[in-house]
């Protein structure tokens, strides 16, 4: 996608030195502002999408406080949640750093920070699947039809589990999408697509990644702690 027309005999300019403005924009600034505003608008939709889970959580917590008070300790291990929180915070930090790297044209640091971010994201997913989801599947701590856990104490445990599974699975899906986006960024970083003038894609994916982190910041205490 990023091949540069090379019918000129001069050295093809590195992509990050030669930003392209699409024909329907009046200027590069207009294009970049538009791109970023589009991303922010998309992020508002993400927040409201997860808002549905938060609303369901709040309502059922209000209806069945006895279930929700005990459920986190009964079904979830806060240590795994805490580790994952730290990992996500670290990845957020490295993404923020990588934007700085692009702004200062530190190409190697940019790549290293992106690699750390991707590693964190994959670590998060692996922990989630291997240490959290798999044991629960084995024990039958599943929502709805698949709920076979034998140690249930209150009527509404499975409501908690339904919210836990749908919310964390949706969040996990966003992390997975983030992994793909970050990998795409890494490939582009290797092709020198990012520099002080051209880091919009990096910034936008970064914003997305921060929102994924932000949602986890709220999911973690609600599901694992209180």
């Amino acid at each position: 996608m990023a091949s540069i027309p090379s019918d000129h005999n001069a050295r093809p300019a590195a992509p990050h030195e030669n930003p392209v403005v699409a024909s329907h924009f009046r200027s590069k600034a207009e294009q970049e502002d538009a791109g970023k505003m589009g991303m922010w608008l998309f992020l508002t939709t993400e927040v409201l999408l997860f808002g549905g889970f938060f609303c369901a959580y709040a309502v059922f917590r209000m209806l069945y406080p006895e279930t929700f008070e005990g459920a986190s300790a009964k079904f979830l291990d806060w240590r795994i949640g805490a580790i994952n929180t730290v990992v996500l915070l670290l990845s957020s930090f490295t993404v923020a750093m990588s934007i700085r790297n692009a702004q200062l044209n530190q190409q190697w640091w940019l790549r290293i920070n992106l690699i750390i971010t991707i590693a964190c994201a994959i670590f998060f997913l692996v922990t989630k699947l291997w240490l959290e989801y798999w044991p629960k599947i084995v024990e039958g701590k599943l929502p709805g039809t698949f709920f076979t856990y034998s140690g249930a104490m209150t009527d509404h445990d499975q409501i908690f589990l339904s919210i836990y599974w749908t919310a964390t699975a949706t969040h996990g899906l966003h992390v997975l999408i983030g992994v793909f986006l970050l990998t795409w960024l890494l490939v582009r970083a290797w092709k020198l697509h990012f520099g002080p003038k051209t880091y919009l894609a990096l910034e936008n994916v970064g914003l997305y990644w921060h929102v994924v982190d932000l949602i986890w910041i709220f999911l973690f205490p609600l599901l694992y702690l209180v």
Partner: protein
Amino acid sequence: MTHPSHPNMPGESNAHDHHEGPHISSVRTLVTVFVALLAFTAITVFTAKMTDLGDFGDIVLALGLASVKGTLVCLYFMHLRYDNVFYSFLFLSCLGALALFLGLTMLDINNRDNIDPIRSQHAVPVPLDIAGRARFDEAQRLGRDLYMANCAACHAVDARGIPGLGENLIGDSFVLRSSDAELVDFIIKGRTANDPLSETGVPMPPRGGNPNLTDEQIAQIVVYVRALQPKDAKPKP
């Protein structure tokens, strides 16, 4: 291939707001924010696990700390502090929409039976709640007879259950943990055998299979069963 912007355009100002170049975060700021986030996470975990502020207090504290963390992420990692103020406005308006959604929905669900002062008493009449201690003994006596006539066949005369038929009512955690009103409600509705929460695999017929049992009589049965339970058992008020 591209064309430069028009420098003399009168309406340029609406196209973009920052000319002086983007803000570059310093390493120190980012590291400080990251460390602060870790610290707040540690505080959240610590307070939730080690202190007991009650259900409500725990939630308020945890959400308060999460909000602080979220604000830090927004302001510094997401650059809102230095960026176009319209983005902050956008983000806040979506949080506002979310707050409306959450707040008004909870307002409805929390208050749905409140305005009518007598309905909540009559919907599921529980003698313990409306008649107080005075009628307790009588209710227990009536409940015993009703229990023997309607429940003993499956739950045994001593209420300790019959394998393959009825659950043990004295030691069962479900019975112990449920409030009186919940138990009455449960008996009225019954439970089918294929309900995933059924522990016996045997259906509990609504109203114990006797349609003539009134809600009040069921409540009397509950009073009787409570009397059989160990003295230190504390069902929810």
